[in-house]
């Protein structure tokens, strides 16, 4: 692999001036990582691939505004998170973050215990992933988006809030609920964890 950031800087500079070949280098280099983020938020390969396209299309039209304060990868991921939130919102399932007072009655994970395989923890990570996915799928979209940005992307809660277009309190709350639900989903196997 090439030296990530140094290579980006040169390609970014050329892409900012409309150099398509340079932009191509950036697309090829970052597409997989952008896909991973979009997949975690949508849980759907086709949607995630569409979001990759959306992200780079947007990035191309905004190239001249990229100021280099964040790394190019970080900037792309922010675009991807924003686009994906918009996409999810545009579908009917998006519920928006619940207000703190309405937090009491979220869906218990009825089906999850049966969906989880027996607690053999020598499972390979692919198996572990397969077991975890139902837990993540059972989060609301906003919870999963918030959790993905905080846990996997390492965004601070204030940045998560900005991407979701909500107050930091609401973003924090979505993350709390996501973590609580995910932990509960582990309970059937949790007693056997190391």
């Amino acid at each position, binding site marked *: 692999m090439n030296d990530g950031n140094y290579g980006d800087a040169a390609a970014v500079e050329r892409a900012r001036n409309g150099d398509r070949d340079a932009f191509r280098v950036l697309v090829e280099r970052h*597409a*997989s990582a952008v896909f991973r983020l979009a997949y*975690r938020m949508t849980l759907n390969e086709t949607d995630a691939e569409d979001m990759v*396209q*959306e992200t780079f299309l947007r990035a191309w039209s905004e190239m001249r505004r990229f100021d280099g304060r964040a790394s190019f990868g970080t900037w792309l991921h922010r675009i991807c998170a924003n686009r994906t939130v918009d996409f999810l919102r*545009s579908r009917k399932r998006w519920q*928006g973050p619940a207000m703190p007072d309405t937090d009491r009655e979220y869906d218990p994970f009825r089906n999850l215990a049966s969906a989880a395989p027996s607690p053999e923890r020598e499972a390979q990570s692919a198996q572990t992933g397969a077991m975890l996915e139902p837990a993540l799928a059972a989060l609301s979209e906003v919870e999963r988006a918030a959790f993905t940005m905080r846990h996997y992307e390492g965004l601070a*809660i204030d940045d998560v809030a900005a991407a979701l277009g909500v107050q930091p309190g609401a973003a924090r709350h979505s993350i709390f609920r996501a*973590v609580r639900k995910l932990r509960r989903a582990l309970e059937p196997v949790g007693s056997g964890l190391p």
Partner: protein
Amino acid sequence: MKHLSEEELILVYYEEPDAPAMAQSHLSECAECRAAAGSLARELGFFDEWNAPAKGEDFGRDAWNRLAPALDSGREVGPGWRPVRIWAAMAGFAILLVAVFLAGRLSRPALPPVIAGLSDQARERILAIAVADHLDRVETLLTEISHDDSNAPDVFAADRERAEDLAQEGQLMKQSLALHGETATTGFLDDVDRFLIEAAHTPDRVGEKEIAELRQRIDSGSLLFKVRIVESNLRNEERKL
């Protein structure tokens, strides 16, 4: 001694600046909270294993091949998903909604029996959902105008169209609400409409100054915040019904 809550432990785990200042010293003294922090870390660590389906070496190249033709034709040509289609579909739904309400009030024989046969409660629920969804779309637009730094003049034209669509949709919502006697929500939608109409009528070559003014209007009247609250209340109502 007051122990750390799960929420506080989560903030500590993610090293958030909002984590309570005393958390670290408490953790060093309290075995119980240390154990709780340990199991939180272990369980969250478990989720690190979860990844997207692996993509092959060619994924970047395939992504480029799909993208390249779209770059030529400017930002309007994207992948399958387009917000515009959704606005149009929703306007259709709003019209249906008004029909549903008219059906409830004026029992005209010409109306489809499916609509006429809905119970008051079902109608109320449909209305709550529709208005909440409408506000959700308003919220997205307001958020984009107020936060998204891509809202430069050249990108603003699309927002203006959406504002216009939403203003029309809002009219239908208000008619339905008025039939239902929901005057409080109708009044709130009037405020929202005033903003949408203003946004829809910004000049063709809108400048940074006009956009800044719109943003200020969103902030000063805490419009966005109110939209969220009303939407959230409607969602709660909808769940109860």
